């Protein structure tokens, strides 16, 4: 059992690039909280910063990599999983973490997401879902809730959104989880489990874009948005209720899928080894 009497000191300053601070995110942007949870999980797992590679895409989420004191790669829109696939295969010694957003991974990068889930390469993908394209000024995204106003849905959103976790699970992700930023400890735990998982892990973080999305839809300030996000979630730990499902229309949080299946990198290396000329390796 872990010694619970130790002081829980996680000093984020040891994991961020202080010369890049303050970061460029808007006031109250939940991405910062998610970043803390991620770095905290990394700290608790004892992952060396030199062995950590963070690959991000484009958008507000994509900018997070620049603040992490690690090997960081800010790649092209929607493609961080493709870059990370190459990097992780080339360097199995690195811990490769992908930071992406709802537009980055579900719209322009949707193909890469489903195939990363299918392949099961050892990567952790943290998707920050704030239901909006924030960087470009607030356009509708594949997760924007029904009827919400964005600059490209002036009469309210009429498109149904993705449930990213169900998508990932259906595509074969061997670890899927979701958490809200308000539950920072649970989020940190979830990310820790995801990072430990051998295979592709997908974690959706429900984040708030107060400045653009919140304002346009009268969702209140960041604390209010965070509280209401939490209220609309159904912690998956509660799923063993027998009577009626707990909050039937809410999205589930927690670990939503975890299966053991062969990790792609290992499988590929084993297959490659079989092709090596006899006597070599």
């Amino acid at each position, binding site marked *: *059992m*872990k010694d*619970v*009497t*130790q*002081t*829980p000191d996680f*000093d*984020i*300053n040891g994991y*961020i690039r202080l010369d890049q*601070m*303050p*970061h460029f*995110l*808007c*006031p*109250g*942007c*939940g*991405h*910062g*909280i998610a970043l*803390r949870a991620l770095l905290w999980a990394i700290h608790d797992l004892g992952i060396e910063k030199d062995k950590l590679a963070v690959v991000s895409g484009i958008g507000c989420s994509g900018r997070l990599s620049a603040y992490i004191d690690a090997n960081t790669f800010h790649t092209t829109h929607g493609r961080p999983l493709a870059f990370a696939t190459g990097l992780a295969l080339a360097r199995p010694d690195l811990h490769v973490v992908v930071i992406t957003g709802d537009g980055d991974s579900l719209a322009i990068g949707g193909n890469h997401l489903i195939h990363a889930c299918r392949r099961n390469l050892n990567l952790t993908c943290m998707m920050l879902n704030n239901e909006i394209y924030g960087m470009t000024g607030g356009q509708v995204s594949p997760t924007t809730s029904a009827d919400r106003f964005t600059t490209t849905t002036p009469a309210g959103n009429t498109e149904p959104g993705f449930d990213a976790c169900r998508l990932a699970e259906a595509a074969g992700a061997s670890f899927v989880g979701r958490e809200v*930023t*308000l*539950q*920072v*400890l*649970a989020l*940190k*735990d979830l990310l820790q489990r995801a990072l430990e998982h051998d295979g592709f892990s997908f974690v959706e973080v429900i984040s708030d874009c*107060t400045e653009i999305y919140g304002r346009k839809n009268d969702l209140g*300030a*960041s*604390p*209010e948005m*965070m509280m209401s996000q939490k*209220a609309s979630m*159904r*912690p998956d*730990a*509660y*799923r*063993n*209720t*027998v*009577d009626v499902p*707990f909050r039937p229309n809410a999205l589930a949080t927690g670990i939503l899928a975890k299966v053991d299946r062969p990790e792609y990198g290992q499988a590929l290396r084993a297959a490659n080894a079989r092709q090596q000329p006899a006597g070599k390796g």
Partner: protein
Amino acid sequence: MSEAMERPKNVLIVGVGGQGVIMVSKVLAQLSLNHGHDVKQSEVHGMAKRGGGVFSHVRFGPEVWSPTIAEGEADVVVALEWAEGLRWINYLNPETGTFIADCQRIVPPFACRNRFRGGEAAYAPETPEEIMEQVHAGYVLDATGMAERLGNLRAANTVLLGALSTALDFPEDDWLEVIGHFVPPNTIDINIAGFREGREWALAGNKRVAENAAGLHQSHVVIHQDRVTTTVEITEEWCKGCDICVKLCPERCLRLNDRLVAELALPDLCTGCRMCEWLCPDFAIAITNTPVREAAE
């Protein structure tokens, strides 16, 4: 009629909203009713929506007056969640009581915390082994894991009922009959299997702790000093005045100053809980808790 027969049995079932505390207590109440007992069942589940604690008192016997169990009087405490079990452990009869807990943990950010300075602020810092030393009989089992292996997480409650059945006098078949009425028809087989597994697990000893209890019980809230002094450091240049710390500090001891920068307004109320530090998206707050040694030490 022996005295033991006359005294009502007290079973306290606790957990977190949505876990099925009510279902477990309904099974027990129905079973007692079937055996001709007078049954009182009282529950609080108003907190369920916030993921807070839910508890249910079940009392049965030839004649039961009070609907609630007094501290130190419970014959059995059944905890569907580890920390909730510890929260109620003082209700257990220290001489004769049986403590049954699932070692799964559900950690809400605000719950399970004594917010006052010097209070026990940890999420269940005690280990299952420590708890076993304090009780007459006890079982810390991985009911959720057992249920998962059987193929249905929801059967965790019947696993616990199986363990509970060893502490009460009802025949096994009667339990199974009642359970059959309370679970969805297509899950009856799995629930029966779950019940039997829980029962056999508990019959194998007087005190048992699941091997993986430690792994599942990983507390991350670890403030465990008796007394601390807290310093709240706010990096003004990084604060963007988002109001998150102000609104979400459980003690409301922060405020935004006239430059819209967070500051500690009511330092005396601060419990050092670190919520503001954890939730600040701009990493502008650093909390330092320094233990204060008791003069008596």
